């Protein structure tokens, strides 16, 4: 059984990883093309890969793709910024003051317990289905992980850091900006990164439920028209943008860490 043989780094795999990584997608693509060409599955169930490609090109050409992606990105940025601001404030407040935590934590936990998806219908009744709804839903999705990770990050700062700060007679503000926050940067950033991923997922949810534009709406539209090629193209864009957003956060994280280590 090859599975349990010890990895012998040089000999076991002759090809570079990138080539091996592409083998399976290539196989899938071939099977997909064959299935479409030989009519194994009707095109309403599985359009040919070329059709998905041309749907993507067409969407890009008509400007719809740019427009919808732009709308979605703007919504995510606005909601994420609002959710982060609130989450950082609450996380810092709870992290610094156990009293604040005592008061707020149970209500926060109850609030966080209901998945974002659950709040959407309630918010739809409260604020309608306009831009406000999208921002609120996306903000909620970022708010919870940012708050929790900020709180945990601040609590994890070693107490002797604060003692040194006290020795320098740092004010509260100095203590926060010069000692606590720099020391808690890594976990706070983890929270921001989770927050952005959650925001992106929340965007897709809210656009699927109530929107007339954006990438999620593109999916709904494709579904109503039974245009699977459009749907698949939209899915691909959702995946790529989600991935890029995460990469941006990862790059920022690295930058901040480098500054910290230097």
């Amino acid at each position, binding site marked *: 059984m090859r599975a349990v043989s010890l990895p012998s780094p040089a000999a076991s795999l002759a090809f570079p990883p990138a080539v091996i990584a592409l083998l399976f997608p290539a196989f899938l693509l071939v099977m997909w093309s064959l299935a479409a060409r030989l009519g194994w599955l009707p095109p309403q169930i599985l359009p040919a890969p070329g059709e998905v490609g041309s749907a993507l090109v067409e969407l890009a050409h008509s400007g719809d793709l740019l427009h919808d992606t732009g709308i979605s990105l703007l919504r995510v940025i606005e909601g994420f910024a609002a959710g982060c601001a609130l989450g950082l404030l609450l996380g810092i407040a709870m992290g610094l003051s156990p009293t604040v935590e005592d008061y707020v934590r149970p209500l926060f936990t109850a609030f966080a317990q209901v998945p974002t*998806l*659950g709040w959407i219908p309630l918010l739809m009744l*409260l604020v309608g289905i306009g831009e406000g709804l999208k921002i609120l839903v996306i903000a909620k999705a970022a708010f919870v992980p940012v708050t929790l990770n900020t709180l945990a990050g601040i609590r994890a700062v070693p107490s002797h850091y604060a003692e040194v700060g006290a020795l320098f007679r740092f004010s509260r503000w100095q203590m926060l900006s010069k000692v606590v926050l720099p020391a808690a940067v890594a976990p706070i950033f983890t929270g921001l990164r989770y927050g952005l991923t959650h925001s992106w997922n929340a965007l897709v949810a809210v656009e699927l439920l109530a929107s007339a534009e954006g990438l999620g709406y593109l999916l709904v539209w494709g579904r109503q028209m039974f245009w699977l090629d459009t749907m698949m193209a939209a*899915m691909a864009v959702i*995946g790529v943008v*989600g991935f890029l957003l995460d990469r941006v956060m990862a790059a920022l994280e690295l930058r901040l860490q480098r500054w910290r280590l230097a």
Partner: protein
Amino acid sequence: MRRALRGTVLPVALLVVWEIASHGGLVDPRILPPIERVARTAIDQVANHGLLGDLGFSLLRDMIGFALGTLAGLAAGTVLGLSRVADRLFMPTFNGLRQIAILAWIPLIAIWFGMGEVAKIVFIMAAAFIPVVLNTHEGVRSASAQLVEVARTLTFTPWQIVTRLYLPAALPSIATGVHLALIYAWVASIGSEYFMTVGPGIGGMIIAGRERFEMDLVMLGILILGLVGYLINRSASLLEAWLSRWQRA
């Protein structure tokens, strides 16, 4: 004790403001129904509209999808963790596909599997599958090479090496994956009812409440979502602690 008391201040204040606002005519009662009306709706739903049956359906769907997704995830994660070839062949594709927000799969799954129960369970399965694969893969890969060597010296069979060495070593990581899968599967159950609404369930009830502008029904639904989510999370934490108990010993 004092901490617990402090924790009740805000929720109680919220409820009091809610009652005053809805009775005093400050807010349209259609937007903010009084608490007792939500309670009456709850009793009415249980007695006359089969709320418990809806809940049972949602949970059953959730559990079936969770169980299938977790089993498939354990198998796939173990193979990917053990075999470097499988890892290099399939992991990049898997990582690529999982970048697509899970809800974005719903329209495609609905077209491929119909709008009925099968499609819902397939979707819940996919939601549970992803975290289990990732964490099993990671757990199996992190099993110590020295231990594997020892096991080989002791002439363990490959099957013994997997079951006695890799899987126990991966257990804490697997437990984390299963914990996440429980949470994701519950959210996916709700999502599946939102977007493929045929058949009974709590998600369907919330959507119906929104369509008929019955805020009390929506609030009741949210309350149930939160409670079930809380119970699932608690039991998952207990399970996780129990599965990793040998580590502390």
